[in-house]
């Protein structure tokens, strides 16, 4: 007979998290080759779709983890930090839509609740 290895759920949950840092490997991701289209009504749809087309090249050129600034159909530049990219965006495109995007091989998928989706048209 198999030994019953079940434990009370509250004990498992408590033991699992206690004193342990958040594990980055628990964040789901998607490969850059599978990034979805930008919705056509999005103010940054053009920029996003340009990023999707160019991300493979940017990765091949060694820009992984750097930050790219895109406006319209043009890559304005690539910087090491978000702050640097944003500073240029603020200088050139203050209060205008543009795309500041980290170049990643795998894009994290953020989790949003049913309450959030109930508030989306």
């Amino acid at each position: 007979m198999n030994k019953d290895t079940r434990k009370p759920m509250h004990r498992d949950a408590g033991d699992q998290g206690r004193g342990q840092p958040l594990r980055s490997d628990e964040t789901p991701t998607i490969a850059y080759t599978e990034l979805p289209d930008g919705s056509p009504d999005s103010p940054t749809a053009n920029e996003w779709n340009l990023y999707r087309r160019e991300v493979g090249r940017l990765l091949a050129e060694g820009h992984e983890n750097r930050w790219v600034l895109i406006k319209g159909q043009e890559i304005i530049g690539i910087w090491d930090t978000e702050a640097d990219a944003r500073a240029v965006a603020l200088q050139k495109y203050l209060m205008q839509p543009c795309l500041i995007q980290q170049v990643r091989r795998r894009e994290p998928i953020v989790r949003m609740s049913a309450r959030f989706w109930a508030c989306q048209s």
Partner: protein
Amino acid sequence: MPKLVFPVLADGLLVDVVIGVDGATTAALFSSGQPITAPVPARGAIDTGSDVTAVSTAILQRLGIPTQYRTTTRTASGILSVNVAKASVAVRDARDPTRQELVEPALSVMELTTPPAMVEVLIGLDFLLAANSCSMARPCSFRWSPEQGVIYHGERDRLWSMIYFLRSAVPS
């Protein structure tokens, strides 16, 4: 110890929030002589099911905050790319404006295109964990008390800040 106390309501863990233009944009507007729109007070709900805070499109448009980032999220029908903007998000007690606020001066927020009338902001884990200064190097925790309700607490700028949600009436 600065702390904010809110009642638990039928609509959830509701808080008073103020949404504004983020700090870097405010500085850029100021230095270029452009007008700065006043922050917008709103009602928010704590939403621990969401990783990212979301703000109604109407508020972002009123503030003139543009989309400058995108992120990917999963829906029942697949992966979507969604608009993200930078905003200043503060949780405060509107009944007592002299109380200290919990402020994230440059938070990446998603758009809520059709929020219900009562709630225009969903406060996600990014705000709550930032208030706790959580990171890989610095794990954090939250407390739940069946008698008292939920307590988020954390250290920011050497000050301890807390948000209480009480099941019973708010103490005077």
